[in-house]
């Protein structure tokens, strides 16, 4: 399964890059810049998907009947991947924005909410890193993750409103930023979404596996180290 995902995503991404960079035509309005369309929205989608999975995993962990370490590990794995993709979303969006609107950053609703989302989950990862006891860590970060995620609609609501009051320049309106996609562009876009999602799945499985190994290391690490020290001591000591 994992191998399939890996190969699938690698193939898909390579194809996306080739199609996106070379084969698909430039847009009538946006010109060459439209090629970023095959990267930025997919990366954004994966970021939101990853954080959504984390939120779900937090709920499943906190719900007494379904509580299991699996959900906790899933939550942190998905969150870490989400942070990477979210940062990338902001970066690619910024790269897109600069030639399009002349600015590296704009305080529109989507960008601001995404930036805040990144901050929220960096906090989540920081919390996990400093909590040592696994049980406490799982519980606290599940609550923190869920509470952070619950904030997102509120953030979005307030920022959207904030934006309409500002009446941003027409050039920033999303409608003008989404070109009409057709033909090869549409297929490449679809391929890109699928490929990045496959990549997410593949990374998730690997990262989850790391999480399992890390738990085992926490449990057994001390014993393994001690056993090694014993092993070193006994043979040389016996000779003396």
């Amino acid at each position, binding site marked *: 399964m994992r191998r399939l995902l890996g190969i699938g995503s690698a193939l898909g991404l390579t194809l996306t890059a080739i199609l996106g960079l070379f084969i698909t035509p430039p847009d009538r309005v946006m010109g060459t810049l439209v090629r970023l369309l095959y990267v930025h929205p997919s990366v954004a989608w994966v970021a939101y998907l990853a954080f959504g999975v984390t939120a779900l995993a937090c709920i499943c962990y906190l719900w007494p009947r379904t509580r299991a370490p699996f959900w906790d590990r899933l939550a942190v794995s998905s969150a870490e991947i989400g942070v990477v993709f979210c940062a990338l979303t902001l970066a690619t969006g910024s790269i897109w924005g600069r030639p399009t609107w002349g600015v590296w950053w704009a305080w529109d609703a989507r960008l601001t909410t995404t930036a805040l989302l990144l901050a929220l989950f960096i906090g989540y990862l920081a919390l996990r890193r400093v909590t040592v006891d696994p049980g*406490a860590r799982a519980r606290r970060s599940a*609550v923190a993750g869920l509470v952070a995620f619950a904030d997102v609609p509120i953030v979005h609501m307030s920022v959207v*409103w904030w934006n309409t009051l500002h009446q941003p320049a027409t050039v920033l309106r999303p409608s003008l930023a989404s070109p009409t996609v057709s033909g090869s562009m549409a297929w490449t876009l679809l391929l890109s979404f699928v490929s990045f999602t496959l990549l997410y799945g593949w990374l998730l499985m690997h990262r989850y596996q790391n999480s399992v190994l890390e738990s085992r290391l926490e449990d057994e690490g001390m014993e393994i180290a001690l056993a090694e020290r014993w092993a070193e001591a006994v043979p040389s000591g016996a000779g003396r």
Partner: protein
Amino acid sequence: MFRDAALVAGKDLRVEWRSRVGAQQVLPFALVVLVIFAFALDANHNLLQTAAAGLYWVAVLFAGVLTVQRSFALEAADGLRDGLRLSGLDPAGIFLGKAAAVAGQLAVLEIFLAGGIAVLYSASLHGVVLLVLSAVLATIGLAAAGTVYGIVAAGLGVRETLLPLLLLPVVAPVLLAAGKVWEITLQSGPGAWGWMRILVIFAVVYLAAGVLAFGPLLEES
């Protein structure tokens, strides 16, 4: 639940009253923040007056983080948190009590800070009803969210740096909405009530979150 809340709130407030950390440290800090903003904005009179509402709420936010830190530092000494857990008090009541104490301290702070912006930024404080109402809602929301994250970060050595990182992004909507209401009210503009809705939603969501989550969070090693 409410009786336990009153007990905990009373305890926290009494400790605060006796130590006067809020009055002697947090309030001066918040006022200094207002002064520093003036330095940063080059004491531009018009700019400060226009920005008064936003700057006020940033100062309240910083003071709020300190107040929450303090609230949980009270039980940081060995065994005190266990004492709280074993006391048999309803965890939801403990949450409400701690949040209420934080809210109370913040409220007093806000009154003084309002005086601060009236004096330092020449903000004319009319429309008191809206100002007070939005401040009450915002304070409840801030205290609730702060207390939730306070317990999440409690007992960790890096609490001082972790709590602001966790809390500030979360309460950004409160800053936005409350700042907006105050800005609109101070400039006598329209549309303040829409922002109030966000403050209400935020307060409700985080009060509920705290009441539900405090139990499982409190019981642990």
